[in-house]
């Protein structure tokens, strides 16, 4: 986990389910083949209805039609982000597109867990609603150590909820490295 994550915001609404993050028809590509896996970056967030893509304006695809990576680094969501299926392809696709962190009022359990255990994106919760105070394209800095988000376009700062025990897994890189460091499985 990087101590500082900087980049542009991509803002979404409530209940972004995993079918919206990566539609089921795309779950067939290899996650290991270096060329084929790029398709996950291409289709990340492609299931979000057009008028909800990149709020408040909408109609702003996360990844442009001819690209495999997104211009946006930090996703700002609402409540119950990542609900629905258990597909780990969802946080994988976000990472493949270049996303590094997602900040939401609440997360669905399996998405949150997959993000952490696979070391894909850093999921921060915030008790206050912030997806109506940040616009898609705003320049953000996320201090993952302090749990502080700065919006450089408005000057606003937001204090996020502490990561708690999962910070150790994120710091280790993924659950395998965490388990090795804790002596729960043998070192490679």
């Amino acid at each position: 986990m990087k101590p500082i994550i900087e980049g542009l915001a991509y803002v979404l609404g409530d209940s972004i389910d995993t079918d919206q993050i990566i539609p089921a028809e795309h779950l067939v590509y290899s996650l290991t083949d270096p060329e084929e896996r790029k398709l996950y970056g291409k289709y990340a967030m492609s299931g979000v209805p057009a008028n909800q893509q990149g709020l408040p304006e909408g109609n702003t695809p996360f990844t442009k039609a001819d690209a495999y990576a997104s211009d946006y680094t930090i996703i700002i969501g609402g409540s119950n982000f990542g609900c629905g299926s258990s597909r780990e392809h969802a946080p994988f696709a976000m990472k493949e597109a270049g996303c590094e962190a997602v900040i939401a009022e609440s997360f669905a359990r399996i998405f949150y867990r997959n993000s952490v255990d696979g070391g894909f994106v850093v999921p921060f919760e915030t008790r206050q609603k912030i997806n109506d105070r940040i616009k898609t394209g705003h320049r953000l800095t996320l201090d993952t150590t302090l749990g502080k988000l700065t919006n450089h376009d408005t000057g606003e700062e937001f204090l996020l909820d502490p990561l708690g025990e999962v910070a150790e897994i994120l710091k280790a890189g993924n659950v395998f490295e965490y388990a090795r460091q804790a002596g729960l499985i043998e070192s490679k």
Partner: protein
Amino acid sequence: MTITEKIMARNSGRDRVSPGENIWIDVDVLMTHDVCGPPTIGIFKREFGEDAKVWDPNKLVIMPDHYIFTSDRHANRNIDILRAFAAQHNLPHYFDVGTDRYKGVCHIGLAEEGFNIPGTVLIGTDSHTCTSGAFGLFSTGVGNTDAALIMGTGKIWVKVPESMRFVFEGSLPPYLMAKDLILTVIGDIGCDGATYRTLEFDGEAVFDLSMQERMTLTNMAIEAGGKSGIIPADQVTFDYLSERGKTDYNPVYSDMDARYHSEYTYDVSKLEPVVAKPHSPDNRATVREVEGTRLDRAYIGSCTGGKLEDFEAAAKILKGQETVIATFIVPATTEVAAKLHTTTIDGESLHDIFINAGCQIGESSCAACLGGPKDTFGRTHGTEVVISTTNRNFPGRMGSKQSAVYLASPLTVAASALSGVITDPREVLV
């Protein structure tokens, strides 16, 4: 302790556990399928080595079910990967496509094959793995990384969940099904109303239900954000298991003084047939409130709505009638498909009832429940309005982002297929 806490205590080697604790537990069964199996295998090999051994081949169940009857080359490659892995590791519980062993939808296949054992821990790479909780066990869905860790070690870390208790009292009227009960609960508490928690079901109306109907209740725990759903095992459970040759198990039950996050009580005799309107499973309305809504298609299938009793319920209404909208029938498993031919109502098989009513019958798999490849049976491609016995109706879930899906019981779906508009089953049940 609750039943869930007791199972977690047992599988972590402790006397007791409390909600909120992070613990490592032993896994009794790991299940995976064609969508998440190949990436799980990829991570397993990356982390444990190309020649690493599965922790216990007898505890790994692989049931391909998602994208089976498709010409999509990537989807078919996933089956090849599973087949090669099963051969390499000599796995006894691989249910291969194109053989007599092929099952179809994994959650129903797990029940039919006797893998749902009371008092145990079953983890699967599918969010609807919570279905198995109908047998008094802890079951939950995980991603590929967690599954790969289990594949190598037999262990998973879990946060012990708080339990919410849902008590259904009274006697279920003939126009209601378990689907109406769980859609009522999800409508009450919302899609995130049980996040990080277990839904424990109780009450005489629950124990009056068959195992098939109980699985509809636990299946949709995830639609309320739940980590798991659970129904304590009783004689109905034991009878189902003994028919499947399983007699050796050790069920546990919640203590009288077990602590719950919250408790909800329903008198089922007062409940109504309900739907979940587009585009969320918690967007509940009574059927009467949306009666007359125009439909383009009806769909009966999936882990939650494609069991034999779901088809028996639909056939009761469709017998001797003709559907006026495209109606798709997808038996969850090959066992259900076979029983469509042998189960009769007044001498006519369910299969013939559906064909004579103008329905199309697909092959056992997840099919259009989650959209899938373009050539998937029943998948939406335009602005179709669908009434379906499946479990999710988020935007694009059945294929097209422009289509709209209403979730309902098999009775309500069948009644609506006859009229082409959303119809209360009380209108047609005699």
